[in-house]
């Protein structure tokens, strides 16, 4: 049996291309998410149509442009051009100051600003608009300070766990989850399906090794791979992204191992229902990857989804694991907070193992 496991390792590690991909993946992902991807708004191109061009409007404009969120675009000479510019995607927002702004502010005690946002990307639009409103609101506060206002209620805002609002914090746990899930489940299922497809599974089955040994041997290299990947990601996020593991590293690694076992059993199950490698891949891809990315709470919060989807996401193992990772890594919590999720993952693992054994038995008969 030892010989078999060694052979499996050679098989994989000798394949340089796959090795580069398997180890390069986590590195690239961490780098991407750490440095390239974010949902934050930076340097959004905006246009300003100022019908007044007086002290107040200029003050507000300066405030907006010096915030770092916006860059002035000169593409919009007049309101008629807005649609065209939006269509080109050159400008995200147009701010229109009405005429005689300062004068109206003095006399009528109110002047109007129009914020026109390109909402084809609603998230960016929302953020851009709320930043704009916040800045205008700030200006408003300053303006009002000059007048004696009866009462003010001030809000002290505190951002827990992530004061700098770095999007990295949300992504790293997700990346770990996805990579563990996919490497283990996908690769395992394809590897076993390959033996089936090429007919070499029969050869293995008639050997003195028991089926369970064959499976263990096939699966062990991927466990190691996935685990190493998890370590690489954690190291990278600590050293390169400055994101530490607040809680117990040991606990995190133990939970990762459990999750890997669960993903393994899922991979084995997929291989038992696939008749070819292509099918195993497509199943893993469509049945696993997309839902993992979209329904696990990785990028899109689960609680904002329609209720049926929320219920469905309960059967997605990554959903629970992400909670575990976030709790340990970012919130620094101990086991007593995550025992429920741990139990669920363990339960899922057992479930898939049982299913696989059953399918395997049927196949053998």
């Amino acid at each position: 049996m030892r010989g078999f496991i060694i052979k499996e390792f050679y098989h994989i590690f000798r394949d340089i291309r796959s090795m580069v991909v398997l180890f390069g993946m986590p590195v690239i992902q961490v780098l991407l998410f750490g440095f390239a991807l974010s949902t934050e708004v930076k340097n959004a191109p905006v246009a300003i149509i100022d019908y007044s061009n007086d002290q107040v409007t200029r003050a507000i404009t300066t405030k907006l442009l010096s915030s770092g969120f916006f860059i002035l675009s000169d593409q919009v000479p007049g309101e008629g051009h807005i649609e065209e510019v939006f269509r080109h995607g050159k400008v995200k927002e147009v701010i229109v100051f009405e005429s005689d702004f300062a004068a109206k502010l003095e006399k009528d005690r109110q002047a109007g600003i129009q914020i026109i946002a390109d909402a084809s990307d609603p998230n960016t639009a929302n953020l851009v608009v709320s930043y704009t409103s916040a800045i205008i609101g700030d200006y408003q506060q300053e303006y009002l300070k000059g007048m004696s206002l009866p009462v003010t209620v001030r809000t002290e805002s505190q951002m827990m766990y992530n004061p700098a609002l770095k999007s990295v914090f949300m992504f790293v746990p997700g990346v770990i989850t996805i990579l563990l899930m996919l490497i283990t489940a996908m690769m395992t299922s394809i590897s076993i399906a390959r033996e089936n497809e090429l007919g070499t599974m029969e050869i293995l089955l008639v050997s003195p090794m028991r089926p369970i040994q064959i499976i263990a041997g096939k699966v062990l290299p991927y466990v190691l791979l996935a685990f190493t990947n998890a370590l690489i990601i954690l190291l990278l996020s600590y050293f390169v992204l400055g994101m530490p593991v607040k809680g117990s590293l040991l606990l995190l690694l133990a939970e990762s191992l459990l999750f890997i076992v669960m993903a393994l059993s899922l991979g084995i199950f997929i291989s038992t229902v696939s008749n070819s490698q292509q099918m195993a891949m497509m199943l893993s891809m469509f049945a696993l990857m997309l839902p993992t990315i979209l329904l696990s709470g990785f990028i899109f919060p689960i609680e904002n989804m329609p209720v049926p989807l929320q219920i469905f996401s309960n059967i997605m193992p990554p959903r629970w694991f992400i909670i575990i990772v976030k709790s340990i890594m970012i919130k620094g919590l101990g086991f007593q907070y995550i025992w429920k999720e741990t139990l669920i993952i363990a339960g899922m693992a057992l479930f898939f193992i049982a299913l696989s054994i059953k399918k395997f038995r049927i196949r053998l008969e």
Partner: protein
Amino acid sequence: MVRLRNLFKPVTNYQSPVTNYQQTRKLRIILYILQKEFRQIFRNKAMLPIIFVIPVVQLLVLAFAVTFEIKNINLVIVDQDHSVASRQLVSKFAAPPFYHIKAYSDSYTEAEEQLKTGKAHQILIIPIQFEQDLQKESKASVQLITNAIDGSAAAIMNAYGNSIIMDYNQDILVDLSGGVDIKPPIDIRYSYWFNPELDYKTYMVPGILVLLVTIIGMFLSSMNVVREKEMGTIEQINVSPVKKYQFVIGKLLPFWFIALFELGFGLTLARIVFDIPILGSLWLIFGVASVYLLATLGIGLLISTLVNTQQQAMFLAWFFAVVFIMMSGLFTPVDSMPEWAQDINIINPIAYFIRIIRMVMLKGSQFQDILKPFIAIAIYAVCSLTLAVWRYRKVAS
């Protein structure tokens, strides 16, 4: 397929010149390959639902999942004042539909537990002297604590909370002035173009369509060719007079058709089920998609020339796919990426297509608006296909 072939049978009582027959011969060979491919694809009963049904189901299900909207904020109130004023403030939070007061607590520690376990998103702390401060000092402060692991969501939740508190502030002012409505000095009017409801589905669905089509183009095609390599049937083809380009066309065309078909199907669903606008020209969308598919199929074929097993093909395709997809602007905006990352997108075909499809579908952009990204895709297609065909060797050296 028999019917198709009859189209190319030379007419028997016409002495066709040799060249004419040669042309139809070349075409015939491609048709034979196509016939075999389609037969194999459709005979694989297990794969059919995976190729056709699952992507569609995914589209339907996932489109509902992808949203950044904050629909529900779970709030814990720590009211240390228990005064009329504080209760009024609390009631303002009870009003909006997206705020849900999970619990009332007396201590911060207890409230923090709720944040830790993830049961609550925000904590509002009203300190002891709240009402007194308001009446005597004319100013008071409250604390709003938000779970900021999801930075953007936190920013929005914080903004919501702040605006409710400002509303409360406004109420007090109105009360004090005897009911006279004190208007805020700056009146802001908001206008959201192309997507007034800020419906995230409108934004995401075109992107998901691109994703589905890309997966077929890159993965299925590469694995299909490598499968022949693995099974050994490619040798029988290499030893025959079939030319490289005939083989390539025969292998890739079926997936080109399937992908376009799925695009059409997906667009129909998008229109009917999600009410996604298709402002621009459908011809334009399919035209661009056709060229885009050539690019992704080219990449898939190129991958197949670099590997020997289906597993390797899958790894490699997956690697490129994930990087390209993440950088393409599907989930996170391209404009939020740093300069160097956007530069890398120059070689990312997915980024171009996503941009184009969003512009055409949601804003009704015309051909001249999307000219630049379209040319990029076209160049990409030519390069990847040429490279792939060049690399494919009938004769091993």
